[in-house]
C-alpha cells in the first residue's frame, strides 16, 4: 500500500517536473500574447464562414497558413530589429522583398541552378542593405526608421531599374514546387519551410548567446555594455540578419506569386510591423517572442482574406489595416506617464 502510494507520488513528481520544464518556455505574459491572435484567428474564420459560406474549410485553413508564411518570413527581420530596441524598426522589409522577387525572377532564368545563384546573390544584397542600416544607426546615430525608409526607397528605385517597369520572370520548376506545390495532404512545401524557420528563430532567440544578448541590449544598452556584451556588433549583426531574411522572403514571394509586379512586396512592411506589435513585442525593445508575431501574422492574413471575400476596395483595406494597428497600439503599446 505504502509502496503504491510512493510510486504514485513519484509519478506525479515526474509529471510535475516535465510540465514545469515545458512551462519554462512559456511564461504567463507570453500566453496572453499568444491567446489574442489565436482567438482572433478563430473569430475571423467563423466570421468569414458566416459572410461567405465555404470560407472555412480544411483546405482553405491550410491555404491561409501557406499564405501567412510570407508574412512570417517578413516578421523575422522586423522582430529582431524591434527587439534590439533604441527606436529600432525596419521600414525596408517590403522594398527588400519586392527587390528579392524581381531578382529571383531575373537571376534564376528558369533553371534550378539559377535558383541557387539568385538566393546567394539576393542574400548578399540583403546583407549589404542591413550593413548600411546597421552602421548608420549605430555609428552615425541616424534614427533607424529614417535610414531604413530611405534604403527601402533606394531599393524600390532598384526594382524599377531591374524590371524596367514590366512584369517579368518565369519561375523554375523547383520554384513552382516550393511556392505552390503540396508536400503531402494539404500541407504545402512553403508551410514546412515556415515551420522550420519558426523553430530555428525561436531556438536562436532563446538558446544562443546572440539571442540572449539581443534581449539585454534591447532592454538597456548601457547595462548590456557594462556586463561585457559587444553591443555595437550585436545591433549591426541584427540588421544584417534582418536584411538577409527579408531578401530571401522576397525570393519566396516570387516562388509563390510566380511573376513580378511593381511594389508587390510593399505591403509586407506594414503587415510585419502590425504582426510584431500585436504579437506582444514591445516597441521599446527587449521584450517579445517571434512565435507571437507568427500567430499574429496568421490572424492578419485571415483578416485580409475576409476583407477580400467581402470585396472591399484597396483604399478601404489600407484604411482598415491602419485603424487596426492604431487600436492595437492603444491597447498594448502605451508608454508610461511622464510623471513616473
Amino acid at each position: 500500500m505504502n509502496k503504491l502510494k510512493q510510486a504514485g507520488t513519484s509519478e506525479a513528481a515526474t509529471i510535475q517536473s516535465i510540465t514545469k520544464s515545458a512551462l519554462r518556455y512559456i511564461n504567463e505574459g507570453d500566453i496572453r500574447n499568444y491567446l489574442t491572435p489565436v482567438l482572433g484567428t478563430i473569430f475571423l474564420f467563423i466570421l468569414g464562414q458566416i459572410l461567405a459560406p465555404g470560407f472555412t474549410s480544411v483546405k482553405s485553413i491550410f491555404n491561409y497558413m501557406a499564405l501567412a508564411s510570407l508574412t512570417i518570413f517578413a516578421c523575422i527581420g522586423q522582430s529582431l530589429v524591434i527587439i534590439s530596441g533604441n527606436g529600432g524598426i525596419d521600414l525596408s522589409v517590403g522594398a527588400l522583398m519586392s527587390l528579392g522577387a524581381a531578382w529571383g525572377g531575373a537571376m534564376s532564368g528558369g533553371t534550378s541552378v539559377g535558383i541557387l545563384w539568385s538566393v546567394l546573390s539576393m542574400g548578399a544584397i540583403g546583407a549589404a542593405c542591413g550593413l548600411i542600416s546597421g552602421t548608420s544607426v549605430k555609428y552615425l546615430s541616424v534614427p533607424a526608421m529614417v535610414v531604413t525608409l530611405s534604403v527601402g526607397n533606394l531599393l524600390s528605385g532598384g526594382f524599377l531599374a531591374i524590371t524596367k517597369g514590366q512584369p517579368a520572370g518565369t519561375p523554375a520548376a523547383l520554384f513552382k514546387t516550393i511556392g505552390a506545390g503540396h508536400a503531402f495532404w494539404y500541407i504545402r512545401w512553403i508551410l514546412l519551410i515556415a515551420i522550420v524557420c519558426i523553430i530555428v528563430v525561436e531556438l536562436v532567440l532563446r538558446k544562443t548567446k546572440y539571442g540572449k544578448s539581443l534581449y539585454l541590449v534591447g532592454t538597456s544598452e548601457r547595462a548590456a555594455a557594462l556586463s561585457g556584451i559587444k553591443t555595437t556588433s550585436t545591433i549591426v549583426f541584427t540588421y544584417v540578419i534582418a536584411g538577409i531574411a527579408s531578401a530571401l522572403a522576397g525570393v519566396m514571394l516570387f516562388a509563390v506569386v510566380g511573376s513580378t509586379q511593381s511594389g508587390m512586396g510593399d505591403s509586407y512592411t506594414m503587415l510585419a510591423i502590425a504582426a510584431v506589435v500585436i504579437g506582444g513585442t514591445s516597441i521599446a525593445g527587449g521584450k517579445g517572442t517571434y512565435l507571437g508575431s507568427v500567430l499574429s501574422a496568421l490572424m492578419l492574413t485571415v483578416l485580409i482574406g475576409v476583407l477580400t471575400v467581402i470585396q472591399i476596395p484597396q483604399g478601404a483595406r489600407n484604411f482598415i489595416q491602419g485603424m487596426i494597428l492604431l487600436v492595437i497600439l492603444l491597447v498594448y503599446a502605451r508608454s508610461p506617464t511622464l510623471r513616473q
Partner: protein
Amino acid sequence: MPVILISLGLSTVIIGGGIDLSIGTIAALVNCVIIVLIKKFGWDPAPAILSGVVVGLFFGGLNGILISIFRLNALITTFATSWITGGLALWILPQPSAFTSAIDLSKIYQSSYLGIPTPFYMLILALAIWYFIMGSSVGPQIYAMGNDLKRAYITGVNVTKTRVVTYVFSGFTASLAGISIIGIMGGGFATVGGEYTLPGIAACVIGGISLTGGVGEAFGGVIGGFFLAFLTALVLAVNINPYFQELTKNAIILMSIIVPSVIRFLVRRRSG
C-alpha cells in the same frame, strides 16, 4: 513646392522631438478631398479648399492627441495614420482625376502676383505662422521639449499642448502641400502625396535639423527642401535612362541623409 512645405511642417515636429510619417499622405488626402468635393459634389473651389485644410488640421491634431494624450510611440502612430489617410485618399478617389472648374487653379498656381510666383505666397503664409508660433511662448517650449522631454515637463512646459501644436502645424503645411499638388499636377492623385514624406525628412537633415530633436531652425528645412528640389531637377535634366531616374533620385536622398551624419561623426571623433 510640396516638398518645401512638407519639410517646413516636418522640421517643426522634428525639432519638438517627434516625427511625422503621415504628412505626405495627409497632403494626398487633402488633395483628394478638395477634388472630390469640387467634382462630385459641385462645390465652389474656395469652400472646398477650406474644408480640405480643415481635414489636414484634423488629422494633424489627431496625430498630436494620440501621441501626447494617449502616449503612443510617435513613429508607429504616424505610420499607422499614414495608412489611414493614404487609404482614405485612395478610397474616395481610386482613379487619378483631372481638375476642371470655372476657376483654373493650376493656371493661378503657375502665374505670379506682384512679381512673386503664386506658390510662394503659401510658403510665406506658412512661414509667417511659424514665426508667430516661435514668437509666442510655445516656440521655446518646442525646443525644450525636443531637447529633453522629461526636463521640459518638470520645468512646467505644457507638453501635451506644445506637442499638439507642432502636429497641427504639420497638418496645416500638409494641406498647403496638398493644394499645391493640384497646382502642379492639375488634379487629384491619391498616391502622389506619400512620396513626399521621405524627401521632406531628407530636406530637414540637409537643413541642419537634428533628428533627435531640439536643434535646428525651421527655415533650414525650407532651404534643404529648395536644395533637394534643385538637385533632383538637375539629375533628371541630365538625360538619365528613365528606368534609372528613380534609383538615382533615391540614392541622392539616401546620400544626403548619411553624408552629413558621416561628417558629424568624423568631426566628433577628431575633437573628442
